[in-house]
């Protein structure tokens, strides 16, 4: 997995609440058997017209936001399906961090498996960053995972919380499976006990 330590980049405002995974990556793009190449399809139905040309008013189609690395979003971002295609598409587009008042559970988990940092901040702090992001490419937001801070282009800093284990994995680009296989003995012991206590399983 890619490491995430810090970044300073263009932030795009997406104030819509309940942005669901069907919006992030519609089902016709779930037919791939790869993890890569989905960036072009990110937010497909909001981003493109029926003839495939871009909708000029969609935020990521605007000149200032073509190199967006941070998304500032409304509450309950990523609700809906478990499709990891959503973070794959976000990552492939180049977005490495999403800031919102809340996230849907499965999407939130999926981000950490793909080197993306989802940051939960109180609504009033998200509002400050949302307004900052509206300034376009001049507004470059900085995120530092080590110190757990987000800083607006005007130098207003907010602290965020993150699970220490997830932080450790993200900062070091650690593979979950390798970490779990180190606990192989615990798993085997559990299986031996379960074979006695719940043999029908």
């Amino acid at each position, binding site marked *: 997995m890619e490491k995430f330590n810090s970044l300073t980049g263009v932030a795009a405002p997406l104030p819509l*609440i309940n942005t*669901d995974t069907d919006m992030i990556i519609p*089902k016709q793009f779930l037919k791939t058997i790869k993890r890569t190449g989905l960036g072009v399809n990110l937010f497909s*139905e909001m981003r493109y017209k029926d003839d495939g040309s871009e909708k000029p008013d969609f935020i990521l189609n605007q000149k200032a936001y073509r190199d967006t690395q941070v998304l500032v979003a409304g509450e309950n971002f990523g609700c809906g399906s478990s499709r990891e295609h959503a973070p794959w598409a976000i990552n492939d587009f180049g977005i490495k961090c999403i800031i919102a008042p809340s996230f*849907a*559970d499965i999407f939130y988990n999926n981000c950490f498996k793909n080197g993306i940092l989802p940051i939960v901040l109180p609504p009033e702090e998200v509002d400050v960053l949302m307004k900052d992001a509206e300034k376009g490419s001049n507004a470059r937001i900085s995120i530092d995972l080590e110190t757990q801070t987000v800083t607006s282009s005007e130098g207003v800093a907010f602290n965020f919380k993150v699970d220490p284990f997830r932080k450790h994995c993200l900062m070091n680009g650690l593979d979950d499976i390798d970490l779990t296989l180190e606990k192989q003995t615990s798993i085997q012991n559990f299986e031996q006990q379960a074979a006695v206590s719940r043999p029908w399983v």
Partner: protein
Amino acid sequence: MSSKTLYDKIWNDHVAHEADDGTCLLYIDRHLVHEVTSPQAFEGLRVAGRSVHAPDKTIAVPDHNVPTTLDRQKGIDNEESRIQVETLDKNAEDFGIHYYPVDDIRQGIVHIVGPEQGWTLPGMTVVCGDSHTATHGAFGALAHGIGTSEVEHVLATQTLIQKKSKNMKVEVTGKLKAGVTAKDITLTVIGQTGTAGGTGYVIEYSGEAIRSLSMEGRMTVCNMAIEGGARAGLIAPDEKTFEYCKGRPHAPKGAAWETAELYWKTLFSDKDAVFDKVLTIKGEDIAPVVTWGTSPEDVLPVTATVPRPEDFEGGKVEAVKRSLEYMGLIPGMPLSEVKIDTVFIGSCTNGRIEDLRAAAEVLRGKKVKDGLRCMIVPGSGLVRAQAEEEGLAEIFLNAGFEWRLAGCSMCLAMNPDQLSPGERCAATSNRNFEGRQGRGGRTHLMSPAMAAAASLTGYLTDIRKLKHN
């Protein structure tokens, strides 16, 4: 010993390792797999030279992409869909996991096949790369959706890295009124909690109205726990649960059954167990409902009118404006005057035999409104066979419905069953998101009986009035 919730008990019985910071390895008893969210996971195993840790606990079935038309033995036209299904065929064979291929009568939607085959049992942990895994919570199993990286993690280790969620109780008291079903319960709950109201929680549904539901109704309720944002939904197992499980192909037999049942009977929340959040709804207050917007929380009784954006607060005001424009609805319009083009009955929410019986009861001896496109897609090949045996298929065909083969179909439109832009559908599925059933398609969620009623009138219809007439 302190009091525990049902979730606490199942959780405790599955912790294989706990780190100092509370991060746990949760052991997984059943891993269900389908073709859309698994190819990258199997590829990951190959690249790392890993095998499937517990192939005997891993069950795969293609469902999202499969055509549901009667000519499906001729193969899948769409190349990408075909490759996904063929990839699952190959992965199932290469890794030696249980498999129900497209041409097997037991094939169907993964969340219908699991319980039907007795893979899902009380007290288990069940995961699948699909958010509607919550369905299996109806058995008192801790069941939830996972992403593809986690699918790979479970394949390789039979565990998940987890932190415990909080406990939430949704109690539905009393009796349901005539015309009100499990679907109306689950939609009404989401209407009250909102789609993020359950985030961070595992919901246990309880109360007389829940206990009165059949296993199939309970599956409908738990299926949509995810639409309320919860990690999982749970219902404590009881005699109905045991009755449903008994004799299923992969349920324990003989002495093993006796031992299992003794354990299952311990699976309930202790009387004084503490929940972090409680919601109580009176069963009598629940009406037949429909969704009007593009979020499953946009729920109203079918007798209501389309709301105004200014009835809401915060970010929801803009969201409602957007929804109403997308849905082509005007505030103040009675929902019963909303005209539909299409009816879809099926999905992991409402594709079981009881759902089909409920639809058949409404459709018996009647014809669908001229010009409507109506389809019924059974949840599995076995549900289809049973419906044919019970004479339900004949009722559907005589009424003017298409009678399809099993699959996810128009619930998410990955196969050719899709809505066109602006096409309005009365659907028994679980999501009314923009574009969910096809780009520009408009979805109204409801129960099978209500969808059947809509097929007769061509409008969103109050099932109680239809019966009255």
